[in-house]
């Protein structure tokens, strides 16, 4: 997928690019209002990651421009402003999602993947990873021909893993993804382990290879083998 990252903080920019640039993703950047507007006018992107506080202009203006020139690019706002109004405003103006800084790169990737999936393939809602087939519309999972019965949390976890394949995902990122960031679960990571164990067991029993790898202390990795 082709992504435009509009962000003025250089070290954050680098990290995001490093995280996104593999598996054939193209990631372009804009560091200020002017260059962002230029790029948006010339190219098409699958998803635009938009920081709201930019030198030279308001990020919200960029969003308005995108909508005005009728671009179909997905827009994900990343902002330090955890303002309820910002959030509503952004979504009202047609942003697809909103992520508050600081965030986990895995969460960003999952959100971007979801936006791109919704926007492209014209109604094709199937995620395929080797023998795993996920129909996001019906929220059903098949391993080859075997239909897998997963709980909601296990299903979310699997989609999250596939969106972040070959990446190490931390336990706190998983916890926040599954239970929301309002709950501080940092003292209770042990039950995340239970969910992952259950998912892994179900996948293997259905004839799937064991893709989930535990990285001690750090987290988990879903990797093609």
């Amino acid at each position, binding site marked *: 997928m082709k992504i435009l990252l509009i962000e003025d*903080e250089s*070290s*954050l920019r680098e*990290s*995001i690019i*490093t*995280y996104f640039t593999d598996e054939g993703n193209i990631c372009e950047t804009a560091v200020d209002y002017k260059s962002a507007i230029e790029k948006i006018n010339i190219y098409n992107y699958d998803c635009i990651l938009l920081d709201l506080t930019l030198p030279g202009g308001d990020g919200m203006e960029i969003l308005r421009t995108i909508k005005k020139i009728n671009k179909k690019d997905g827009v994900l706002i990343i902002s*330090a*402003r*955890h*303002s*309820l*109004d910002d959030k*509503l405003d952004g979504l009202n103006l047609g942003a697809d999602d909103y992520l*508050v*800084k*600081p*965030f*986990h*790169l*895995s969460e960003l990737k999952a959100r971007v993947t979801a936006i791109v999936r919704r926007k492209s393939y014209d109604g094709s809602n199937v995620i395929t990873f080797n023998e795993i087939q996920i129909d996001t519309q019906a929220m059903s999972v098949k391993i080859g021909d075997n239909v897998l019965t997963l709980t909601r*949390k296990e299903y979310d976890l699997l989609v999250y893993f596939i969106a972040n394949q070959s*990446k*190490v995902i*931390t*336990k*706190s*990122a998983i916890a926040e993804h599954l*239970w*929301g*960031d*309002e*709950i*501080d*679960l*940092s*003292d*209770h990571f*042990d*039950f995340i382990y*239970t*969910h992952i164990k259950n998912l892994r067991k179900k996948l293997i029993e259905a004839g799937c290879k064991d893709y989930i790898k535990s*990285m*001690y*202390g*750090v*987290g988990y990795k879903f990797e093609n083998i």
Partner: protein
Amino acid sequence: MKLATKYNRVTLIASIIVFIFTGVIYYSVIHYILTNKLDRDLAIEEDEIAAYVKTNGKLPQAGSFKEQKVSYYLIDPAHDFERKYFNNDYFNESEQKIEPGRSLISTIDVNGELYSVTVTKSRVESEDLVRIILLITLSITIVLLITLLLINRFVLNNIWKPFYEILSQMKAFNLADKNDIYIEPTKIDEFTELNAAVAAMSLRVKQDYRELKSFTDNASHEMMTPLAVINSKLDTLIQTETFSDSQGELIEDIYVAVGKLSRLNQSLLMLAKIENNLIGDQETIDLDELIRQKTRQFQELLQSQEINLKTDLANKQLNMNKHLADMLINNLLSNAIRHNYKGGEIYIHLNEKELRISNTGSDDELIASKVFERFYKNAASEGMGLGLAISNQICNLYHFKLNYTYQDTRHTFKVSF
């Protein structure tokens, strides 16, 4: 005591004392003057009798006429006799009744025989006069006092009106409010000065408060970007290569700390936002449904702690911001879980009037007066001590009442709508 009451009381007491005092003096002076006049009349009468005796060599006829009575009797010349004035009652023959009188008793020599002469004049007239004067004085006094009180009440109230106005404005003064203190101009210098001082003070306080707020706000926002950088760098770092177990643990600790820091920051921002009343749209919230949804969200946590959750939810709708409702239930529920023990209990009760969340937990009662303060927490708590402060702010915003009680080893938080 109100200033006007105090003032009224003082003036009232002072005027009563003054009136009584002057009344007594007034009465005695008039009384003295009238008695004096009677005495002089009596002396004239005595002189007339003496003149009559001198001319005619005998006493005039004794008797009573025209408020006056004269009587004689023979006395022993050896007996020492004193001329004196005195008050007495006598029988007024023309009026046929006993009346108060003033008498002069003296002696007169009629052809070598010593007679005692008593001349009595009626005091009724002068007593009446004194009484009328006293009555008039008293009624004037009373009328005056009443007038004084009325003037005090109405004029004082009127004069103090600007004061009460500014007082009510100061009472209603809210730092976070947008509107400033405005007072109608008055003609009284003292109040004009007071108004100006209060207005200036409120402006200055607001200015300071705004600066402080925007400082907190900006500081928190500025902190978010470095936090985001740390987080993203950590995310990048863990992709690089395999770590040893101890390195992994170190990284996890950093993650947890960064997570705590950003949550803390967000809580501070949220507090500022609620305080500044920057909360957006309200909508109708089905509170019972929201609680059910939250308990589902917390289900795994409850299970892992083996906490027994009992709910008793009646249908209740509230008009509030969705995000804040979410946060309120979240905070109360996660507190009930966090401060519980393995195998403990949580009971949620919701009805039209109130929401009660009670949980088993430590045997120590929290300090009810401090529990909603920022950064208040007991030593064992791993939270930041902001959750309840935020919950309380949310309740304040919607005029709910949040309170804490501890009874039968259960900690209960109650929201009264």
